[in-house]
């Protein structure tokens, strides 16, 4: 048995769509259960009063990372077949900042906007309409931004490759960052809660 299943032909295109649908439903479900259907909860992140977004996302990252590492290490998963988004450093940094600004202003990121809409939030609907309008504008203007869009190409790179250190060491470093981040986030939340208590009096 070897993964990724789709690339080894364990199931075809049609079944892969069903699998993707199920994974998507699961993803949405857990986002909702984490409270991410609410713009209040999401934006609290940017005021440091509730860092659940950071914790949930970082948990997901290290879970996937540890899973991929050990499955690859055991020979169950062919890591070289796992698709990596090619890196275009400059446009992706700018794009990330744009997404962040949109997140703060609109209260949702694309995924959570869908979750919000699924639970009947009007602001999520407005947010999604904005997202689609943005996609349309971007698509129409693409010839003008194409040069920037493909600037600073680095190919499909990973941190172990760039830094030329063993994969497992990067895994360990990210885990240390995560554990430190979780502890720090909890501390920040407590400090902010205290400030809130003090303020009204």
């Amino acid at each position, binding site marked *: 048995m070897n993964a990724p299943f789709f690339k080894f032909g364990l199931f075809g295109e049609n079944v892969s769509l069903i699998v993707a649908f199920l994974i998507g439903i699961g993803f949405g479900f857990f986002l909702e259960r984490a409270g991410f259907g609410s713009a209040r909860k999401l934006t609290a992140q940017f005021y440091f009063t509730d860092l659940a977004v950071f914790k949930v996302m970082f948990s997901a990252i290290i879970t996937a990372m*540890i899973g991929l590492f050990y499955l690859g*290490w055991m020979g169950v998963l062919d890591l*070289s*077949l796992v698709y990596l988004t090619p890196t275009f450093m400059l446009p992706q940094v700018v794009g990330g900042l744009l997404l962040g600004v949109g997140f703060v202003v609109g209260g949702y990121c694309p995924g959570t906007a869908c979750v919000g809409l699924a639970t009947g939030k009007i602001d999520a609907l407005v947010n999604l309409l904005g997202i689609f309008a943005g996609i349309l504008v971007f698509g129409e203007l693409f010839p003008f931004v194409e040069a920037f869009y493909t600037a600073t190409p680095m190919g*499909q790179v990973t941190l172990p490759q760039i830094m030329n250190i*063993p994969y497992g060491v990067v895994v*360990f470093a990210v885990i240390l960052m995560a*554990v430190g981040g979780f502890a720090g986030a909890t501390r920040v939340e407590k400090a902010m809660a205290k400030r809130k208590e003090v303020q009204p009096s």
Partner: protein
Amino acid sequence: MTRLKTTHYAAILLGVLGLFAAFAGSPYQGTQYTIDAKELARVVEGEVDHVNPETLADWIIQGKSDFRVIDLRTEAEFAGYHIPGAENAALTALPEYGLTKSETIVLYSEGGIHSAQAWFLLKAKGYRGVYMLRGGLEEWKDRVLFPTLAANPTPAQTVEFAKMKEVSKFFGGTPQTGAAGDQQPTVEPAMPKLEMPQSALAPAGAQKKKKKEGC
């Protein structure tokens, strides 16, 4: 209090998994080697897959030890002469030879064909720091062991030759000073003896690298 404990347990579990990962080795065990043709073509076109004989000579003289030189010729040829510090490995034995994927590997054969094939083989297996000695042992002889001054040298060529003369002596070669560019040398200059050159330039590190492996 109990909630706090759960997070502590989680942190410890993560730490253990991470620590083990750091020493576990490569996660690419299940990898079926695939070649990214575009990436490979880019590497070949950019000629970043080569090491000049002069550069390699420089590394050896400086006593750099973060690279391995692999001689792909037969045992007999290897015994006759090899680049100081080189290890002998047959093309077929290369995947099991014990090279690691992150180290710098310089491959050479008599000309360039075998090293190019070995380069491709190792690249396809996911070795990242694989290089070919440009022109193989032939060019090593021409440029490092027996450098020749052109018939009507430019000042730059003369300076370059003066430098290569020293390098050549270091490796026990004979610089060809005859300035007989178009005159065919009738006698092949003698290959230097196998001993690692004992020069003041050679640090102890370079000495240690020489392995008399018969494999």
